[in-house]
């Protein structure tokens, strides 16, 4: 389409380009300042995590550690049974993630590929439940789970993951609708049952969305705060979120230990982010808009 530009227009564009350059310099400056503001708090965590305790509480700030105390990562984590808590969080997150993926995939397949009466009604119920704010169910569900003896256990953090997450289900359905039904039918002709069609054909074909679900499910579980806070009283059973929130208020003298522990808590998320950046950034829009489309 470039050919329709007349000569004056091209010259005009040229002039614009030079002007844009000064604007770009300003933009770069703003971005640089913003980036420093965004990243500096993280850098601050790292420097404190490496400092000796006395070097933190100085009247004149010390922007870089004088000497590096890598032992903070060991001493700090020792003192608060960090690794036990870390294992708790890891276990809960992995088991929940498996549940989220399994249930969303199976329910999504049922809703989009199988034909049965009431399908549309249930579909609208599940999608409608996305609009219900999370806190509405909190108290009755808490009472229900406590009555059946789930208080102070991990079950309230894990079992719900196996009961279908509407957002992830919807995400999977959306992707399934882009896969032609002829794939199912061809497989059926070859004698494949529903299980084979789903796990051998459809899931491998929708791997990007499944990975997105894995990342967001793990992320959600790793971040989960309210549920562990209200269900877990026993410190042995705590997850990292509850443990760190509690240490932050009680543990005000050993900032270096706290920051070291906080950094390790962030680490898995950072790792996932850098490994799966593509899915992270793409998935986000779809996860977010799944609610209202």
């Amino acid at each position: 389409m470039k050919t329709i530009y007349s000569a004056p227009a091209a010259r005009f564009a040229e002039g614009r380009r030079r002007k844009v350059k000064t604007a770009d310099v300003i933009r770069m400056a703003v971005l640089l300042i913003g980036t420093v503001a965004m990243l500096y708090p993280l850098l601050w965590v790292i420097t404190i995590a490496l400092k000796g305790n006395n070097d933190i509480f100085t009247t004149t700030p010390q922007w870089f550690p004088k000497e590096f105390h890598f032992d903070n990562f060991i001493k700090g984590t020792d003192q608060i049974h960090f690794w036990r808590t870390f294992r708790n969080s890891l276990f809960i997150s992995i088991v929940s993630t498996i549940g989220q993926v399994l249930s969303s995939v199976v329910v999504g397949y049922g809703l989009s590929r199988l034909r049965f009466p009431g399908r549309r009604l249930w579909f609208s119920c599940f999608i409608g439940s996305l609009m219900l704010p999370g806190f509405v169910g909190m108290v009755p569900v808490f009472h229900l789970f406590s009555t059946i003896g789930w208080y102070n256990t991990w079950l309230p953090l894990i079992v719900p993951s196996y009961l279908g997450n509407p957002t992830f289900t919807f995400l999977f359905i959306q992707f399934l609708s882009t896969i032609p039904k002829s794939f199912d039918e061809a497989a059926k002709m070859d004698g494949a049952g529903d299980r084979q069609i789903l796990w051998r054909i459809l899931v491998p074909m929708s791997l990007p969305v499944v990975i997105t679900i894995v990342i967001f499910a793990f992320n959600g579980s790793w971040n989960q705060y309210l549920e562990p806070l209200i269900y877990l009283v026993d410190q042995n059973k705590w997850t990292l979120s509850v443990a760190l929130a509690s240490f932050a208020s009680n543990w005000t003298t050993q900032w270096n230990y706290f920051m070291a522990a906080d950094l390790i808590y962030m680490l898995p998320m950072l790792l996932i982010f850098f490994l799966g950046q593509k899915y992270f950034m793409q998935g986000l829009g779809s996860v977010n808009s799944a609610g209202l489309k």
Partner: protein
Amino acid sequence: MISASSRKKDYWGWVKGYLHISPSIIGFGVFVAYPLIMSVYYALTDWNGYSKPKYVGFDNFNYLFTIDPAFWKAIRITFYYVLINVPASLIFGLLLAMLLNRKLPAIKFFRTAFYLPTVLPMIATLTLWKFIYHPQYGLANRILNLFGAGPLDWLSNERLALVSVIIAGLWQIGGGMIIFLSGLQSVPQDLYEAAEMDGARGWLVFRNVTLPLITPILFLQLILGIIGSFQSFAQVQVMTGGGPNYATLLLNFKIYSDVFGQKMFGYGIAEVWILFLIIMVFTLITYKYSNQFVHYENDNR
């Protein structure tokens, strides 16, 4: 004529379908239907969570509106919070996205840097900000000090605490930014070229080309922002505990402390209904008013 075998097949398809969606049916029952139905009753009871709920009619609501000293304060604080937080994150998120939607050197690095804080666990960042706001050794006051500005009581000053909580939240601006960015990138390039041919620049292009095309995303973010902000809880639970002097007592946090701190289950559920109602009203109002502004591409068929 339906043969026996096809009827059997129908029956089997029915069973198969329901088997597949049974997890979600149970989930819907346990997390949506059951709590909604029970909440209607629990809201009308005096109940500590252990003993049998005692029916008291509208006493909870009566106490809520007329006696509870913290309730109206919590409502006011929650409104302030939503009315500052939602526009601030929308505006800054959009500005940032526009800034990052350019062919600049190292643009990928900038996008990653601004997005990075949002991938960190919420509690990790909230506890971090608690330290940043520390009056003596926190990062915030040390930086103010560099510019010769006096130390602030970020979290212990009644008038500042809520703003501090909101500022900490703006660290996560990247979440909205990335969504706006994808919206901006889907605006067809030839529209900009056409606008430029017509001599439109800067603000005019934004006002007449960009803005109308991203209104659906803007609207979605607005609704999600309102719903999310009304439910904010961990921010104040971790950073301020609702204080000082209730200055950051968000309604959802008040519900949490009434239920799990004071063991007032029935009362807490009554408050849940109020918050739920407020969210619904706000969502409906937003929905109604934005219909006039939101531009959907397939509207002018």
